[in-house]
């Protein structure tokens, strides 16, 4: 008995982690998947109902708006974060004075919660006392900046706040990538007469392919899950114009008590994340095995 215990001690120590993840991650995802095939309302029902909830989901105007918003948000969020992140990383890499201070400033938003961020931006963007008033008081009397309360434009305020929060992170990833390149490569290119621009555009940035890939995966992942920021900034409004899938899911589940339908929306999000993550994990593992 004692021998057996000693021999299997490592596995026993590991059991809680495996058990908890098995139950709370895999078990729960499977439960949600099952419920998405039933006609559950307030309480879960266990008779199968086929793809009814998914049909309902994709016929719902609110869900289509949510998906539309997600696509707009993801595209802009990605582009701005990556472009700003790269510019800042390359510029910081030029033996800049006070680099440490600047880096700290660019990255501190990552330490704040989206609720804090959202609260701050909501105050800045509100038309009565925020930026709009600031410019009008400065003499630009016709200056208008009321995106926060404009159905068409409100989604872009979420982009502004989201980019503010995450661009510094992309900067950190690229800076680490640039710093890991051997100095010799850059020196050799310069001796051959390449300008600084060419060195970055033709040599260093192409070498950053894995960093692009990582940033892409992380940013898409953040945007699919984005929930807090929308709650704090617009609550999905005005009307339902800034609804996103994560918000749709919780509202359908906990305010409208449509458990089956919300499970279906959760599974759609799950599949979207899987489509991005699985190739990423696969390539990472291959890289690790190749080492």
């Amino acid at each position, binding site marked *: 008995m004692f021998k057996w215990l000693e021999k299997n001690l490592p596995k026993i120590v590991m059991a809680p982690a495996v058990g908890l993840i098995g139950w709370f991650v895999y078990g729960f995802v499977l439960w949600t998947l099952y419920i998405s095939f039933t006609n559950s309302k307030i309480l879960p029902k266990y008779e199968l109902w086929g793809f009814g909830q998914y049909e309902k989901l994709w016929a719902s105007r609110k869900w289509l708006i949510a998906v539309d918003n997600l696509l707009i948000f993801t595209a802009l969020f990605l582009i701005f974060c990556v472009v700003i992140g790269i510019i*800042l990383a390359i510029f910081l890499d030029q033996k800049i004075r006070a680099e440490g201070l600047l880096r700290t400033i660019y990255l*501190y938003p990552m*330490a704040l919660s989206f609720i804090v961020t959202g609260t701050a931006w909501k105050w800045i963007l509100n038309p009565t006392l925020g930026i709009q008033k600031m410019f009008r008081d400065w003499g630009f009397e016709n200056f208008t900046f009321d995106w926060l309360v404009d159905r068409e434009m409100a989604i872009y305020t979420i982009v502004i706040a989201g980019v503010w929060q995450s661009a510094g992170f992309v900067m950190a990833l690229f800076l680490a990538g640039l710093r890991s390149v051997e100095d010799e490569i850059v020196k050799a290119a310069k001796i051959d007469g390449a300008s600084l621009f060419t060195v970055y555009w033709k040599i260093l940035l192409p070498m950053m392919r894995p960093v692009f890939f990582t940033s892409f995966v992380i940013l898409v992942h953040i945007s699919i899950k984005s929930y807090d920021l929308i*709650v704090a900034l617009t609550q999905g409004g005005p009307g339902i114009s800034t609804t996103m899938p*994560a918000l749709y899911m919780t509202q359908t589940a906990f305010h409208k008590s449509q458990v089956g339908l919300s499970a279906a929306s959760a599974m759609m999000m799950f599949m979207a994340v899987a489509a991005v993550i699985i190739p990423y994990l696969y390539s990472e593992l291959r890289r690790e095995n190749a080492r």
Partner: protein
Amino acid sequence: MQDSLKSSSYQQLEQKSKYTNMFLRWFLYFTLILFASYFIFPLYVMVVTSLKTMEEIRQGTLLSWPSGINLESWAVAWGGRGYGAGDTFLRPYFWNSIKMVVPAVFFSTFIGAMTGYVLTKWRFKGDQWVFLFLLFGCFIPFQAILLPMARTLGVLGISNSVVGLVLVHTVYGIPFTTLFFRNYYVSVPTELVKAARIDGAGFFKIFFKILLPISAPIIVVTVIWQFTQIWNDFLFGSTFSFGEAAPIQVALNNMVLSSTSVKEYNVDMASAIIAGIPTLIVYVLAGKYFIRGLTSGAVKG
């Protein structure tokens, strides 16, 4: 050869490139400072707004300097106005968050350290698959587990309680803490462990005598990561708790959204800063470790 190159035209060229260089430098600093102001702007606005009276807020602009250091909105945000019903303030929720963060960080870090230790130093057939199995937990969108989690907490009788949130955060922290410790212990030479085993040291003795003493950096990274994630969480907090058991981010959101007669932006901003200060302090004091955690585990989002 060298000398003949230094003709007058070469010197001209050098002169010219000096000017372009200077221009580039200016452009560089200008851009960097421009972006720095974009990033600092909201924090500045939050701080000055929290120090103004509502009268000043209506008269001045976002950027205008407060007339004095007026801490009243901070006092109201933290301790309320002192009348009974409807007086919401952050103090009790701040403590809720502390009571939630401390045990959740401890348990998830401990479990992660143990699991990472087994996965790297007591390897067995298929351990790579176990790691992959756990790693996948980093990536799931939590919407896919919210419904069953709500029911489970109800069945266990710990819904709407700090204990329930400790459980949730511990469980969903394990994939990250395991990832951190596994990647760190992989680089510790296994010969050390083998030698100790030959000397007769057991499973726990090896962990506490050999691995734990050299684990300080990764423990710092893990604790900071978990602390930031759990402190800043809103999804779990708002789904599984309300009223008195809510953590601070939920309370902040409720305070800001509650539509009482007059909107008090100064109190809102003071509240937001209070909710953000603990993680900001950690970031300023231990930025290096914060960034290290971020770049190796940031897939959580």
